[in-house]
């Protein structure tokens, strides 16, 4: 049984001059208990909107998000509040996501207050143990966000997300604003907490090396759609979709062999308000046929040795 499953989730935004952008189009997947699902894609592919739509931080147009027998998309406010105890989010910007006027004790303890958990002193103890858990000094409670570095603030945001002992955390570019040396500290912390607490994580990032490191399964998004999803090892070592292949070959590797990072595709992602007909990647794909330009491929299991991988590409249809 999966912990959370997403079915045909779709979210459209209205832009200037009547333009309509389908940020998330017909996305379906599920997350198992204790699993880290990496969602990777370039800017504008809809990965952040997907995270927000799952938690209903933005209301999806249609689709279902099933959690514990409840469809979050059609849930009432009070049902939603209850399920949000189990579903938490950590944002990219540790400067913008902490209220500068609140002391850290208040920031981390607020979820407990909102959900009416514990007495005042119990909450204080819980905050102290949370700060300890994420590796912050105990006196942090009485200090303000500006007194902390970017890495420390991300630890605070993680402590806040953990306050209600969630079953699932959505981490949206949670290490992207950090320098490499701090990034690895936070990645280690997230991995450690996951082992200790056993929660599931949807880890959203544009950074393939981070995604590869932390994920059990990986979903690759392009222009609002999942184009490939499967076990991390499979997706990273034998990418199926031409976009996944291009993405992997574009990453500049720290190795002595040159020409590892190659611009294998030209152009840039198209205007999302005017996506190509057929496969969204067809206008940049070196292997596109007329079929790709006309008919949108469905996300289907790949046959052969790519076990457990699904991809939306006509090349693999039989």
């Amino acid at each position, binding site marked *: 049984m999966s912990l959370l499953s997403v079915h045909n989730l779709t979210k459209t935004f209205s832009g200037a001059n009547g333009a309509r952008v389908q940020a998330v189009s017909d996305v379906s997947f599920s997350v198992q208990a204790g699993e880290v699902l990496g969602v990777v894609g*370039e*800017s504008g592919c809809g990965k952040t909107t997907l995270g927000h739509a799952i938690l209903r931080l933005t209301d999806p147009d249609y689709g279902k998000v099933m959690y514990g027998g409840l469809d979050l998309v059609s849930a009432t406010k009070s049902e939603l509040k209850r399920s949000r105890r189990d579903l938490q989010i950590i944002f990219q910007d540790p400067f913008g996501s902490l209220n500068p006027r609140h002391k850290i004790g208040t920031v981390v303890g607020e979820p407990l207050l909102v959900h009416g958990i514990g007495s005042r002193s119990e909450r204080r103890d819980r905050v102290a143990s949370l700060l300890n858990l994420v590796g912050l000094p105990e006196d942090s409670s009485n200090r303000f966000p500006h007194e902390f*570095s970017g*890495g*420390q603030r991300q630890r605070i945001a993680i402590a806040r997300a953990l306050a209600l002992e969630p079953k699932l955390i959505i981490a949206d570019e949670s290490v992207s604003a950090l*320098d*490499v*040396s*701090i990034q*690895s*500290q936070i*990645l*280690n912390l997230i*991995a450690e907490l996951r082992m200790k607490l056993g929660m599931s994580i949807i880890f959203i990032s*544009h950074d*393939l*090396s*981070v995604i*590869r*490191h*932390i*994920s059990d399964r990986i979903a690759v998004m392009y222009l609002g759609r999942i184009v490939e999803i499967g076990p*991390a*090892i499979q997706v*990273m070592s034998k990418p199926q979709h031409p976009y996944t292949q*291009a*993405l992997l*070959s*574009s*990453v*500049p*590797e*720290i*190795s*002595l062999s*040159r*020409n*590892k*990072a*190659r*611009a*294998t*595709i*030209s152009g*840039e*992602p198209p205007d999302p308000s005017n996506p190509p007909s057929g496969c969204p990647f067809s206008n940049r794909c070196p292997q596109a046929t007329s079929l790709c330009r006309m008919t949108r491929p469905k996300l289907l299991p790949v046959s052969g040795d790519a076990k457990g991988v699904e991809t939306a590409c006509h090349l693999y249809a039989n």
Partner: protein
Amino acid sequence: MPEQTLLSVQNLSIEAGNTTIIEGVDLDIKPGEMVGLVGESGSGKSVTALALMRLLAEPPMKIVSGRILFGESEILTLSERALRTLRGNEIAMIFQEPMTSLNPVFTVGQQIREMIHLHSSLSGPQANEKAWELLARVGIPSPKDALLRYPHQLSGGQRQRVMIAIALACKPKLLIADEPTTALDVTVQAQILELIDGLRRETGMAVLLITHDLGVVAQHCDRVAVMYLGSIVEHAPIADLIGNPKHRYTEALMRTIPSNNEPGTRLPAIGGTVPQPAQRPPGCAFHPRCEAAIDRCVAEVPLLDGQDHRTACWNPVP
């Protein structure tokens, strides 16, 4: 006569207020060479680059010692008039965010022609012809139409191509590229880096590439200098640095990067954070975070030592 040097920075130190932010930087660039300047945020790489063009905000910043030789000219003693000729004609610069470098109310054509008019005596139609050629050269599709466009009508990658076209207009001998691809998606980053690399091979201009990404440097640069807290700590041909990093900071930085580790394993993190320049530790600035620090590292500032592969470390990697 030894191999000729295009740019030679000698013992450059810069203060902001009364705090030293750049200390004793030495850097040579030969014609046609691509040199990487790598460091985490706050390491002083951008300040160093701005100083080369005399674009520092003075005050509060102040160059307190050193020489910057460009060919025959001593940049630190040039008049404002001579500097204007040097900038653009001899040394050009591109930045991380092309949108803030381009003027939003002028067309692409107007902005390229402005550069051409300032630095040459071409007539209007000739300048237009040249602008068109430059755009074609940097890989802008339908360059004639692009001349009439405004920056907001271009994608991020195209804007950076336009910036490169403007930088190339006067055939500079040195291009300073400050995080030119950091704001771009990875597939577009690969295209822009290949463009810059191709242009320098074609035209023989030298490139100083400033980046936080060791992978980018590994794939494109001939030599690399690593900065930490305002000083160069290691400087080597790229193969030597990647194959055998000597400074403990460089080595730790490479070890902590997720792609250099097995997925799912604990990353060898660097403890602590980069201190503020005002709280610069005595001795080697990296020693409080260094696992291999010895007594001497606390007491004495290490200086760059060595021939081709230079490092400022009292206890280097064997």
